[in-house]
């Protein structure tokens, strides 16, 4: 575009639409009647025949979430079953509007609030393994057992024992692998530590399962992952996905099925009565967090949020675990109304913990929630939030920048709400 700089002359030839928000929550706009340039070199005339002034809710799409959400959620006051009921309605609404929308997060939050939910429920939400039952039900023609693998002879076995009695793991392992005796190699690997164990598992799976199966990738990867997770080696297992493009793609594509398989393999403990939260064993927690970090770093914000939510990671400015920069601050894109509401429900799920007092990081998002309500013309709901926030700010440290900014923003909003209430266009 080597056009000579011709100042804003273009503006003189075009009437474009005018649209302006204003601080008063009112909008002025004017749309030209005719499209395209005004008459060629002729006298310019505006085709905006009329300006309209309306309140913003008149032209904004009604946001059902914002309008119906029973927030702000308050410990000891809001009832879980009310939120569950609300979630049910929203889930029905969304799927009626758009069958393609992924409702995983909404359904996960519902499960987390519902009494008696199990890890199996969460697993089934991510991947309905019932479809596998049919495959499993197919009769299997047991073939004659014909030796097709290897084990060590007696002398080798004695050598293994001797190596172990001298503490020489490496030599023992090497001998077992040389003789392709993977059972023995796995046992020795279990002695040496997580890293060695993982290495042997990986080697075994890739050697013994590389042929014959038509989707070997999933087969080997998923098995390997499950076995490594349950020996507490999630971090190393997931590190592979960072290094290998193919496995990275596989992990991103199949994150739900992977997570489902890990969750369903948690040995069910006897359910403790009155226990609110589903208990996640530390080994599985490690998997959820490490996989969540991986997905986040590959741009899968929502998937990573789901994993963090299953793991009950608190929303915070602190990194999820100490050796990463990844933080779980909001659910999804924080500026969206969905994010506000999901984060608030998630936060509420923690309120059964005795000392829980809310996530400080959510305060700005709640202020934004109030702005959005105000903008949608839902002033009384907005006031509920500003009242709630006013109370929260009072009990927060004063000389904290973020709280100072919060107080400033809250003050601006309350001023606006009260001035628009008394203005001639305000609601009665």
């Amino acid at each position, binding site marked *: 575009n080597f056009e000579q*700089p011709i*100042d*804003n002359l273009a*503006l*003189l030839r*075009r*009437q*474009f*639409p*005018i*649209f*302006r928000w*204003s*601080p*008063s*929550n*009112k*909008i*002025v*706009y*004017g*749309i030209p*009647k005719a499209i395209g340039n005004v008459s060629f070199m002729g006298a*310019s*005339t*505006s085709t*905006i*025949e*009329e*300006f*309209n*002034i*309306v309140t*913003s809710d008149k*032209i*904004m*799409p009604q946001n059902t979430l914002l309008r119906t959400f029973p927030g702000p959620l308050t410990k000891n006051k809001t009832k879980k079953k009310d939120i569950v009921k609300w979630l049910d309605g929203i889930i029905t609404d969304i799927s009626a509007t758009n069958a393609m929308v992924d409702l995983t997060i909404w359904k996960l939050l519902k499960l987390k609030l519902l009494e008696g939910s199990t890890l199996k429920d969460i697993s089934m939400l991510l991947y309905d393994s019932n479809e596998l039952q049919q495959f499993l039900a197919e009769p299997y023609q047991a073939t004659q057992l014909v030796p097709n693998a290897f084990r060590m002879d007696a002398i080798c076995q004695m050598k293994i024992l001797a190596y172990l009695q001298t503490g020489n793991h490496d030599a023992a392992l090497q001998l077992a692998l040389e003789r392709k005796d993977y059972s023995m190699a796995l046992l020795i690997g279990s002695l040496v530590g997580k890293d060695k164990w993982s290495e042997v598992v990986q080697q075994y799976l890739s050697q013994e399962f590389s042929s014959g199966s038509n989707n070997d990738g999933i087969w080997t990867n998923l098995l390997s992952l499950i076995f490594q997770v349950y020996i507490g080696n999630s971090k190393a297992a997931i590190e592979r996905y960072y290094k290998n493009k193919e496995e990275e793609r596989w992990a991103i594509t199949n994150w739900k099925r992977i997570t489902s398989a890990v969750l369903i393999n948690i040995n069910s403990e006897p359910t403790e009565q009155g226990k609110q939260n589903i208990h996640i064993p530390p080994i599985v927690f490690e998997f959820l967090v490490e996989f969540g970090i991986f997905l986040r770093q590959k741009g899968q914000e929502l998937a990573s949020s789901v994993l963090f939510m299953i793991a009950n990671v608190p929303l915070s400015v602190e990194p999820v675990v100490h050796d990463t920069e990844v933080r779980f601050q909001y659910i*999804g894109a924080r*500026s*969206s*109304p969905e*994010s506000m509401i999901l984060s608030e429900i998630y936060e509420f799920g923690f309120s059964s913990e005795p000392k829980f007092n809310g996530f400080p990081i959510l305060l*700005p*998002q709640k*202020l*934004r929630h109030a*702005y959005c309500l*105000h*903008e949608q013309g839902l002033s009384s709901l907005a006031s509920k939030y500003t009242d709630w926030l006013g109370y929260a700010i009072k009990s927060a440290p004063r000389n904290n*920048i*973020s709280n100072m*900014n*919060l107080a*400033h*923003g809250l003050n601006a909003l309350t001023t*606006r709400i009260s*001035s628009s209430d008394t*203005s*001639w*266009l305000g609601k009665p």
Partner: protein
Amino acid sequence: MVAIANAHNDLIHDAVLDYYGKRLATCSSDKTIKIFEVEGETHKEVATLEGHDGPVWRVDWAHPKFGTILASCSYDGKVLIWKEENGRWSQIACHAVHSASVNSVQWAPHEYGALLLAASSDGKVSVVEFKENGTLTPIIIDAHNIGVNSASWAPATLQENKPTKSPEESRRFVTGGADNLVKIWKYNNESQTYLLEDTLQGHSDWVRDVAWSPSVLLRSYIASVSQDKTCIIWTQENNDSSWKKTELQKERFPDVLWRASWSLSGNILALSGGDNKVTLWKENLEGNWEPAGEVEQ
């Protein structure tokens, strides 16, 4: 709904409501500014402000704490300040530091005082403070070669200062230019001027408008619209990290995008396009921007 018909006979470039939504100012290629008062479903034209020697591009109302004050900018290279007292409008100041068309004018967040930001085709932006004693102390910055089309203030936020000092305001604004660039500027206390903080490349033709989302406290959002028929959303996590670029949509718009305007909450972005449409946009849970309707006449 209030409908005001046939405000000007020539092209109309801007229409702005005041803080309370009681006054509307419009401006036009006919070199005039008109003031309407709206009350309920009625309105009346109360003044026609004449003083510019060319098309008037933009107008902006000052915060009511400074009085009923309007700023305007024009092809004639001037910024004029208008004031109403006892129902009578008069020009109270003229800010004439630019050597070419002044394309945008915006009052700063009221917390900073009566501070005006102007962007000009002479490649400069100026920030001028109207002090109580009537003096003007303009800061003039070389911003974009070829010309600056638009400039927009960031909302007022506090930032950490040196450990021993109390927090200070983080005064920033964004500019969009005929060099296809978007630039971020920040006030520096030591040098008493605005320094370039970041240069954002993304457009392939003139940047027509830039708008900094008024929403505070969460991450910063800037929308830039361009002659290249695209809108880019620029986001910054904290006040000091780098800016991330997101295209509003993958496909180009049918025509040039002229103006961008954020709702008060930052929740909705309105774009004025050369195809005569005003389209609304919102960010969804996945962080993608999706249409939120279209404004019909």
